């Protein structure tokens, strides 16, 4: 699943006009009230987030070892980093990471570029067209990921898909589901799903660009395109970096679309991306410990990448 936190728009606009923080008022009683209000959140956070993560970490250092024919009781023993080594040595896991990297190479430029283009167009368009446009662009995102994947699987399947048959009558025979095309095909689903959502974030950021600066640019003789590139783009960079952050994290969690498509073609294997590898380890191969190790590795990758993205974008700002 290309999950992105749904509460980003406000986060995206906030950084632009920096409001100076108010000095903290009356720390004595306020602290207690705050604690009262925060407790439910932290309680749920601890149970639903911290505890499972710790449990996964613990699991990842142990292994269920059977012996002989395996029909006896399994022994649980501490194995240190062996699960991690096994995961990293697995060709299917590293292959999945490579595939994901390739996926990013296609997906991020297409999606972010597309979102930026649409947002700039919307910002420049007249008001009425803008509303309609906004709705149309956002609509695909309102379709749940599973449904979207099912629809696209239908549109890709030869013999069933109207698109494939139209292409065939035009003399182009294209199998969207074969080994070469499958990656772009899945990228296409993700782009279709996520562009609209990111357009909204970028568009909101664009709305916050001070109009007087744009007017000044216009007085200086800048056309729409020049204003977009030299004024708007630098001013919405923080929003762009937020998008990048969520996209990178979301990409690492890719799962739903390939899982659904794997029912339609053998090109998507059951260990196609790291998340699917972890699922397969846990529920098909019944090796929970290896699955835990794989999940921790995925989480670490997300942490490192997020750090890199934020680091890169904050340097840009300075």
């Amino acid at each position, binding site marked *: 699943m290309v999950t992105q936190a749904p509460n980003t728009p406000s986060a995206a606009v906030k950084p632009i006009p920096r409001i100076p923080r108010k000095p903290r008022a009356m720390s004595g009683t306020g602290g207690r009230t705050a604690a009262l209000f925060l407790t439910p959140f932290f309680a749920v956070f601890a149970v639903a987030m911290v505890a499972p993560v710790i449990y996964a970490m613990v699991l990842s250092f142990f292994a269920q070892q059977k012996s002989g024919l395996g029909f006896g009781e399994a022994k649980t023993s501490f194995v240190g980093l062996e699960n991690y080594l096994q995961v990293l040595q697995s060709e299917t896991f590293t292959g999945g990471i490579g595939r994901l990297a390739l996926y990013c190479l296609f997906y991020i430029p297409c999606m972010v570029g597309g979102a930026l283009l649409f947002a700039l167009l919307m910002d420049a368009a007249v008001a009425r067209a803008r509303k309609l446009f906004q709705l149309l662009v956002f609509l695909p995102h309102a379709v749940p990921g599973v449904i979207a994947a099912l629809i696209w699987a239908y549109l890709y399947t030869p013999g069933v898909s109207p698109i494939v048959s139209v292409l065939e009558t035009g003399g182009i025979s294209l199998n969207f589901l074969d080994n070469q095309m499958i990656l772009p095909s899945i990228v296409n689903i993700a782009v279709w799903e996520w562009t609209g959502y990111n357009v909204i974030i970028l568009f909101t950021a664009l709305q916050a660009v001070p109009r007087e600066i744009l007017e000044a640019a216009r007085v200086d003789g800048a056309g729409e395109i020049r204003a977009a590139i030299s004024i708007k783009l630098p001013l919405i960079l923080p929003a762009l970096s937020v998008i990048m952050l969520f996209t990178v994290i979301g990409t690492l969690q890719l799962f739903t679309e390939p899982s659904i498509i794997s029912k*339609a073609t053998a090109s998507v294997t059951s260990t196609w991306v790291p998340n699917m590898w972890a699922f397969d380890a846990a529920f098909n191969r019944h090796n929970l410990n290896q699955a835990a190790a794989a999940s921790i590795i995925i989480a670490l990758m997300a942490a490192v990448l997020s750090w890199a993205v934020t680091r890169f974008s904050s340097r840009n700002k300075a």
Partner: protein
Amino acid sequence: MKRRQLLLGAVSLMATTALITGCGSTQAAAPTPTEDPSGTITFWSSMAGMDKVAEAFNASQSKIKVTFETIPNGGAGGYAKLSTAITAGNGPDVATIEYPQLPQFVSNGQLQPLDGFINKAETVDKLTDETKALVQFGDATYALPYDAAPMIMWYRKDMLDKAGVGVPKTWQDFEEAGKKLKAVAPEAHLASFNPNEAALTAALSWQAGAKWFGTEGDSWKVGINDEATQKVANYWQKLIDQKIVKVQQSFSDEWSADLASGAVVGVLGANWSATGIQKRTEASGQKGQWIAAEAPNWGSPADAFYGGSSFNITKSSKNPAAAAKFIEFLATSQDAVKARGNTGSAFLAYPGLTPVAQQAFDSSYFGNDIYAVFDKAYASITPGWQWGPNWDITNTALKDAYGKLTSGGKVLDAVDTAQSATVTGLKQNGLSVKE
């Protein structure tokens, strides 16, 4: 030599199962089958019509009440759900597990042996040796078989006639028939090769005399790329290269569309394929054209099981005696088969049940007596096949390796990959493995 190895394996299996039963007998002395159990039990299955069977059982007596729950089938995550639930201690009393997955549930300690709960003389003892071998490990019985699914080849008779060939008897005939079909209908394929069905590759290899899994002393012997399987792999590669068969996922939209349009005119399946074929081809006016035939063989009649399910008592069951009464009903009672109604062309393992299932199924769509064909196929099942301790490792590896078939990958390479992945995976679980 071979017999000795088998014997040794069986002895060690007995020893280990004795160990499990020793450890697991918290329910003290196992009650005798004559005891009269009562209580409420839960039953999970993905098979259609099982809700009606549970209702019929509830109506037939008042002591045991069965609560039925439909779960997704194995391919859609049913086994993941079942396995997780049993591990967490909230699994059902009675589960439905297919034969390939059964040893893995046994090996994970997720099932209770049925011995002591069921009336053996009236149940397992009446089965054929080939079926018994699928549910007994060592001297313990872990399941009652429901269906015995012989691999069956389904053809469009009209297309065979058009190609001027009879029903292929051997695999060589099959290839010839495919070539002749190509000559009269260049776009048509005689069958499809299903990369999503590792169990079908297993059945084909089983039929050819392969033994993917076996025991040798205290070790598993894994032979997924053994000689017989290599023969099968090379043969199907030849069919794929000549476009006699089409590589496609079975049960996919593409497969359905190709059956309807006539791009594929045969289905290598099992007795249970009938409903699926009818559903996909009925609207295209193919009534009466489809016939069932014994799968082509390598020279003398031979077949294998492709699919089939068994009923089991899980580790989570607190009332195994009541559960045993229910699975006896499920697996051996004619009333259970009647209650299930017309859910497909079932072929059941317990003697005397298949005629009841046959009556419930309307086979008028097909051009020949399909049950007569099933009977013949069932009589020629190659003995000696055993499933391994973790089928899903092999299943995943083989399916994944088949993913390369559309871009120049070879069937033979895929079985080699599956072999090494299985050996590595089993060793990682600590099992002793010999290649």
